[in-house]
């Protein structure tokens, strides 16, 4: 279904949703930093900046409770968290590089084990994508086969038009329902041209060649050259739309506490650190290798997809300038 929505009507739509108790998550400024966060009013929305963190936390939270416990005398009682309590959410202004990661994550969270926490949040989230008009030299969505107008993952997709407003098209029942429920705010599509879309600089990688090289080079001296300077923080993984490792921790006192699921990152020294003290990934290059392998080989092996959407966030935040686009490009040329 193709429609047109003016900026004003989009704002009205969001304010209506907020008033009805739906959680509306969109890019907004938090203490000077653009982030996807729940809006209290559509006026807070900022559409001209790429949020610093990806949209994944709407369905894969930074941290969430998965169980609570209480102790009394010699008894312990445990209560579960009911996924039915997750709020209905509309996620608005999601860039393609974020939205395209969603089906990628769906694959892993509904594979052999169905992660009810992830899946229930996904079910309750409507994704309103936004064609991308901004790119810097860290962006490389086109290099990994996506585009600034890619609609994968979006339930409803907005394309900003010359003269204001958005062309919008639904790609799912959820998207359609959003239009139908607020029909008066949508108009028939018009003929205005879209704003010029972003043009990332990187040329398309040959991801098959990348995987082919990775298949053969688990051990390779170039890993040291690539990642000796990695300092082992989790910034790259935490801002990534596709990274999805998590850690389970119990926090609380002798009397009561919670079991929590928190984001984890393969850059951390504690990642895969065994209780015995042994760590198979005992050096930073081995941990960074896992990041590349997971994104361009392991995930492909299992699900036939690449775990990178070229958003460039990790390149921008890396304290030591590790550039995944450059690394993958170089790998792609190794077999030539």
């Amino acid at each position, binding site marked *: 279904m193709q429609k047109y929505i003016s900026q004003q009507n989009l704002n009205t739509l969001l304010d209506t949703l907020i008033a009805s108790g739906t959680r509306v*998550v969109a890019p907004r400024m938090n203490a000077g930093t653009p982030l996807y*966060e*729940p809006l209290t009013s559509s006026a807070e929305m900022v559409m001209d900046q790429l949020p610093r963190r990806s949209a994944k*936390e*709407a369905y*894969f*939270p*930074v*941290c*969430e*409770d998965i169980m609570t416990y209480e102790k009394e005398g010699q008894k312990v009682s445990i209560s579960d*968290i*009911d996924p039915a*309590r*997750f*709020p209905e959410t509309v996620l608005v202004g999601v860039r393609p590089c974020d939205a395209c990661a969603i089906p990628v994550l769906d694959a892993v969270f509904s594979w052999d084990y169905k992660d009810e926490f992830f899946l229930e949040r996904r079910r309750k989230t409507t994704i309103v994508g936004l064609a991308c008009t901004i790119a810097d030299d860290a962006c490389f969505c086109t290099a990994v086969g996506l585009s600034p107008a890619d609609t994968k993952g979006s339930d409803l997709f907005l394309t900003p038009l010359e003269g204001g407003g958005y062309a919008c098209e639904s790609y799912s029942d959820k998207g359609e329902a959003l239009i139908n429920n607020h029909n008066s705010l949508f108009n028939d599509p018009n003929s205005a041209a879209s704003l010029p879309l972003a043009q990332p600089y990187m040329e398309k990688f040959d991801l098959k060649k990348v995987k082919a090289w990775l298949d053969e080079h688990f051990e390779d001296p170039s890993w040291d050259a690539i990642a000796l300077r990695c300092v082992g923080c989790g910034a790259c993984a935490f801002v990534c739309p596709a990274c999805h490792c998590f850690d389970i921790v119990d926090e609380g006192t002798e009397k009561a506490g919670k079991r929590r699921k928190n984001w984890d990152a393969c850059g951390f020294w504690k990642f895969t650190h065994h209780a015995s003290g042994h760590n198979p990934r005992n050096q930073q290059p081995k941990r960074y290798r896992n990041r590349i392998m997971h994104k361009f080989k392991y995930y492909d092996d299992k699900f036939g997809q690449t775990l990178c959407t070229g958003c460039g966030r990790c390149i921008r935040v890396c304290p030591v300038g590790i550039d995944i686009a450059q690394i993958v490009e170089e790998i792609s040329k190794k077999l030539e």
Partner: protein
Amino acid sequence: MHPAKQKHTFEPKIIAFVCTWCTYAGADLAGTSRMQYPSNVRVLKFPCTGRIDPVFILKAFQQGADGVLVSGCHPGDCHYIAGNFHARRRFAVFRKLLEFVGVDLNRLQFSWVSAAEGGKWVEVVTDLTEKVRNMGPMTEFKELATEEQWSGAINTPELKEAFNAI
């Protein structure tokens, strides 16, 4: 349930970190002298103020303390030669940090109370209790403790209902 507590609308929770040789003994002396003071204080005993980590103060506030007292031997009286001198520097700096992040320093008291100063113990504890009682509850850390990242939040209709009922 606690009829005696109706005297005041708010009973602050005061946590005291004290050294065993001077202040703990001073508090013992207040007891043997049958001096009276507010019952709000809970005492944690350490060998020396030198052992008291700033993290403990932070943890105390996070666990709901409305006021924190750190007390040890007078300068020169340290059972361990210089532990209180190290503590003095540590806390001189730490309180400035807490102040900078927005903790009202009226809630954090430091004192020297010797084993002979039962009266001073009573005075310090009473003053801090009354001061904090007048300030009201320390809400900052308690609020933080209940806050979640938006992404992990869940609907809590009963809480919302209770909130609306207020």
